[in-house]
């Protein structure tokens, strides 16, 4: 809710102004996650057996929900709430037992979205879109050891906050009177990456073997497809 609060503060005034739109977009996101990949490698070395890295922070689905309004013929502004996630997994199993590590990272982001119309073609308008906001990340590390029929698991969770910019291009196609289809492509840049603080004790944060803070870096390409509805 703390993430949604700023968005509400932006959206309500825009609804009062003129021709508001809501839109939902879903698509694929890639993630840099360089610290986390190193972190995964360090975890792997500590395993007593040679576990296999199954995944290492791959491209995954991302979604966002936006409310915007036209400020002028050329400019549209609004708020966006987005969600995405990715993760890493290492696994080992033999006749005697198993050991696995699941690293799940999720991101809730809140941003101000600005869209600038680049052409006057009403059938197929192009927009330069830029989102500016914060993302709240969570990292869940789940390690499970199964030996001689008994299981033992452990969960450790961290939270962090990043600031990001996401410039991009959006093309829109109206296919009904109030409905439009949107195709958006952009690149998310995390301009400030916060420390991952332990959920159970925020005084502690995650470090790598060299003593550097391990951060979540959500930077990466974004491509999404969505639908917009004009409310008025």
């Amino acid at each position, binding site marked *: 809710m703390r993430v949604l609060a700023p968005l509400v503060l932006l959206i309500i005034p825009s609804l009062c102004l003129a021709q508001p739109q*809501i839109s*939902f977009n*879903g698509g694929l996101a890639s993630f840099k996650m360089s610290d986390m990949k190193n972190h995964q490698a360090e975890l792997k070395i500590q395993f007593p057996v040679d576990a296999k890295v199954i995944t290492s922070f791959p491209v995954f689905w991302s979604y966002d929900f936006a409310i915007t309004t036209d400020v002028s013929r050329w400019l549209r502004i609004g708020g966006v709430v987005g969600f995405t996630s990715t*993760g890493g*997994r290492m696994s080992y199993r033999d006749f005697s*037992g198993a050991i696995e590590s699941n690293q799940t990272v999720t991101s809730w982001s809140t941003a101000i979205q600005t869209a600038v119309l680049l052409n006057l073609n009403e059938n197929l308008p192009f927009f330069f879109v830029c989102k500016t906001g914060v993302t709240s990340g969570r990292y869940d590390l789940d390690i499970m050891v199964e*030996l001689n029929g008994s299981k033992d698991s452990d969960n450790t969770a961290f939270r962090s906050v990043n600031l990001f910019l996401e410039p991009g291009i959006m093309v829109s196609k109206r296919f009904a009177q109030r409905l439009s289809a949107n195709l958006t492509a952009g690149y998310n840049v995390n301009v400030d990456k916060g420390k991952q603080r332990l959920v159970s004790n925020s005084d502690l944060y995650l470090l790598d073997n060299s003593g550097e803070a391990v951060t979540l870096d959500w930077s990466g390409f974004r491509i999404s497809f969505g639908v917009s509805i004009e409310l008025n």
Partner: protein
Amino acid sequence: MIFCHSNTSVFFLALVSILLFRCAFESDEEYFRELKIPDPKRASAIIRPIDLSSYNPGDTIDFFGNTSFFFSLTGEHGRLESATVYLNTADNTWNVIASGSTTQFAISKHNLIDGIFPLRLDLTLTSGSGSLADALGEEKFDISLTWFLRVDLSPPLPPTVNLEIVDGFLTLEWSAYKKPNFEFYEVNRKLPNGVTNTFQLNERQATVWRDESYVGGYNFPIEYSISIVSETGRATSPPISRIDPLDLRFSFDPKDSTFTFDWEPTPFYGPFEGYKINFETGKEIISLPNASTSTHSDKLSMAAFGAESSVGFHLQSKLKALNEPWHWHSFQLGTPITFSLAGKITFNSYLNSLIALDTENSLLQLNDKFEPLATLAILKGSNWLSPFPGNYVFSTSNNYSDDNIYRLQLATNAEVTYDYFYLGSSISTYSVAGNGLICLDYDRPPLPSANIPPLYVTRAFDPATNINVYTESSNTVKLSASISEDGKYIRADNDRVFKINGGSSELVGSFAGPGAFLGFRQDNSSEMMFADGDRINFYASDTFEFIRTLEPPKPFYRWFGSYDSQTKNMLWTRSVLSTDPIYAVHIETGKAKSVQVSARSAHNKFYLVNGFLVYEDHFIKLY
């Protein structure tokens, strides 16, 4: 409618958003590693004492002393977690003798006795399967392996040793000690002088040892023994004696100074380096390298007349380690005197032959070969004089024990005895003359009981008549005089010279010249001899005029009184002989003749007589 439709769409979008927002990343793919399940029965170990071949479980391991063991793990296994070694000793209990996490352990011989005992090795191993459980140390095997330990700590038995000559070497052979607790063999060689040499052989198979030094030639036995030294003790064979005395014969021919050695060749040609023959000075005469040589003759040019010389014979080994003895043989140059001579041989002018006294006090007449011709008389003692020209022979009993001087007249064989105990005084010195006179010095101490002062007398007289031809006495001054050999002159204290004329004597004068009086010339008493340094000055006895000087033939040579009246030669030597010769010097011409003599000789045992040089009981002809 639109609105309604819009509301429916919004609702629909919101629903889809909520549903999709729940779709966080999730992965459940799994990696399975196919591994072979380990079988504890397939793990084992092989134990072996270090340096020995492998033993399989169940084998018997021979134990002969402190031994380090090593076991190697076989079959499928991981690392060794722990190892515990037990020995079931005589009391039928399993005793821990070693534990740890290494593949080595040691068993000490202490507290063990001979016998066969089970040896158990309990091992804890990881499976080594590579599984997760193995990696976490949760997959282990416990295996137990058993051997038998046969303990034999009995000491070695004394070896039987054979001593033979093999390939020219004295060789010892014995049977090998076969137990692995062998440490070394020890060869002991005890020499006749008590010194024992020890040789250590570290190879078990080295059961032959040859003496690289022994070449024989000892007159006393050398003892050999072999010791076997093992970890459990030492055993020594009974000593075996070996004696190879040198069968050596020596001969010397004084005619040509040739010596000959004959010997039995040594059978020890292996270590043999040579037969060495050395002169007494250490100078090598010859070295004969052929072991089969059995005789050698050589002319001994380096020997000199005088004291005995010797040549040594020596068997020498290449190693020179045994200090083989030298066998010395003595000989003497010159012709040996065939009778037992006492004192010196003298030429008697009256008899015109050599005379000498033997050890039986027989006065012998000798021929020119120093062989006795006749016994002239039996003298009363070995102290005898035959002054020039030799009409009389004087003798005293040994040590003057009966205070008599005996005078034997050779022409008549008549003997006069003179008791020289006179006025309570005793004889101090005396001299005799060839005309029968005796010159005596008496020293009588004071007689306190009768308050009689001391009495000193010197006189010359004929013992047959006791008539003095010269006499002096004093109660205060000790007196001394001597008579010339021909009885013509007396020399008294204060360098006074008296000339005897008939039954009396008259003072010639006091000689004031330099030097120490040596005496009147034996065969010409008109000449007096004085030592002036090393030279001798001759003065006329009647006038004290200087006649001539004899210089020593070489510096530091002196005349010690030996004079041959027949050849008129004086013998000049050094007081300590060296490698320099001695000289016969003509008393009138000074012509010298050198003779090389042994440096080991005593100079005062050389004398000249009748043209011969005599040293003790050997003589050589000089003229």
